């Protein structure tokens, strides 16, 4: 996937390694890193290849902002909630955090039940 020379924006796609671009120098096979339209032959690190790809926040999704335990669920699938209504109590680090609705919405799906242990950024509730 070679990048076109006239691409001005430097998005993540531009600096992905591409097999077409690998080249052999002696015994080592190098990968390509594109910076400011220049393709450099180089090694890519594990950390670089595993970097987190950016995902914009989705207002339809409620994610756990901290890992913890679901203490209480105040609503149910199909119900309507108003801005300011309580949705879920998430206990983490010895504190109970209440998650409130930000807008008037209706619940499409709840993905957890009381007592569940959730990691960070897990989908808890999906709005319609």
């Amino acid at each position, binding site marked *: 996937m070679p990048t076109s020379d*006239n691409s001005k924006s430097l998005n993540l796609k531009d600096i992905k390694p591409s097999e077409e671009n690998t080249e052999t120098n002696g015994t080592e096979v*190098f990968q390509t890193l594109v*910076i400011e*339209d220049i393709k450099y*032959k*180089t090694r890519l690190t594990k*950390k670089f290849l595993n*970097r987190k790809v950016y995902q914009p926040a989705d207002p339809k999704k409620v994610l756990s902002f901290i890992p913890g335990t679901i203490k209480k669920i105040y609503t149910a699938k199909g119900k309507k909630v108003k801005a300011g209504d309580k949705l879920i109590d998430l206990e983490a680090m010895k504190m109970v955090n209440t998650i409130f609705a930000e807008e008037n919405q209706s619940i499409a799906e709840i993905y957890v039940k009381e007592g569940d*242990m959730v*990691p960070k950024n897990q989908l808890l509730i999906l709005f319609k």
Partner: protein
Amino acid sequence: MPVHEEFARARKHELFTNKRFMSLSSKSSDLKRRMQEALRGGGDKAIQKQKATGKLTARERIIALLDAKSFHEYDLFVEHAGRDFEMSDKYLPGDGVITGTGTINNYPVCIFAQDFTVAGGSLGYMHAKKITKIMDHAMKLKIPLIGINDSGGARIQEGVNSLAGYGEIFFRNTQASGVIPQISVILGPCAGGAVYSPALTDFVFVVDKISKMFITGPEVIKTVLGEEISMEELGGARVQAETTGNVHFFAESEMECFEQIKKLMSYIPWNNQKKAEPFPKKPPRVRQYSLEKVFPTNPRQPYDVKDVIRGICDDSDFLEVQDLFAQNIVIGFGRMNGYTVGFVANQPLVLAGVLDVDSSDKAARFIRYCDAFNIPLVTLVDLPGYLPGVDQEHAGVIRHGAKVLYAYSEATVPKITVITRKAYGGGYIAMCSSHLRADFVFAWPTAEIAVMGPEGAANIIFRKEIVEAENPDEMRKAKIKEYKEKFANPFVAAAYGYVDAVISPEETRDMVIHALAISADKKVDVPLKKHGIPPF
């Protein structure tokens, strides 16, 4: 009856039946008996357990690290101060830590080693007192401090007193920072407070499969978060050396680790008022590391910059620091004409040598270390700039990248810069340019000092011509070529005096040695201040 109970009972008995006028020889044999008891550490069983995991005991470690027969121990008879939870009946030899003085390469050091066989090397009040006492010695005597850490963390039974102990150690680490060299060796699982003291010291050493460091261990993570991870994956030596950058030297065995420490100690001065001891000068092994062989002129081709460093430093002997972390920048010690210098070099072999969050942190800290300990800096520049990407921006590459600017600007040791190939944009400024007060900037004829790479620049400057051309691709190529010829060279910068000399690569060693020699007594007036506010 367990040893400690037997001992406690005997001691109690002695207190009441003590014959007040023993002969000298019986006093001496009494001393010997007490010493033997204390030197047994946690007892045979615990020692066997320690050895079964491939670890040396605390005392063996000290003896292996220091010059032969140089170790002298103090505070052997210190006893723990725990009063609650039936601790008062327990006997903990030396309270789980061995402290003393000795020599490395015939220079004096203060040292402590936590003894895992005694209550898991846990840190109680008196344990901490022994450590802070030897730290105070090191500061008074202005000699290096080496800490061998093998501790499960705070001794829970001693409650807030063990926290107090940690606090006292952290305070002294900070006070001593930049005054005496502080070296931490992690030789066991170190959790919680036990890892913060090493984090405050200059260099941290780990050994594969033996060292583990974390703030909260796998058990806590499992109960609180439900995530399962092994100690090794969470904070093993390799993770700390490759991923976190918390440590500086990685070894396969404890003996290799001690050799690394001795080698490092040969490069650094004993305190911040001194300079590192010079060594007999030796030329580099040029046949193996001829610049002609290791250095490609095409700015897009990678090469190992360590070979270039070896091509110019004494005996081609380069001690790399943090060789597994953020490999897109190389830092370490070498000698020029016998004198220690700190090398900082972009590594085109990895990520094209870009500056990013990790490599900026790594370089900036090393620059500040060298500045604090009077070690001149030699910087080799070949980078395309800062790494673009959302992850980098969101990780705060602005703040981290600024550390390099801060560290170089702040440093008052002699600063010599050699620009070998690319020096584009912000990367050019950051890598010890004359604007950040490099004393001498040399450029090879292959240097490209420009605001950005020719391709990117041509696309912006000649956008209109390219878009409007009949054949945009050809026009672009022509414009890139035009820009390359005009700006991708060292002579534009040299014309403004930003580069002091354009030199041929073979001259580099002589030029750098001369520059270092004449700036040996460099003095810089810094504005009066308590301290700056670096972008931590």
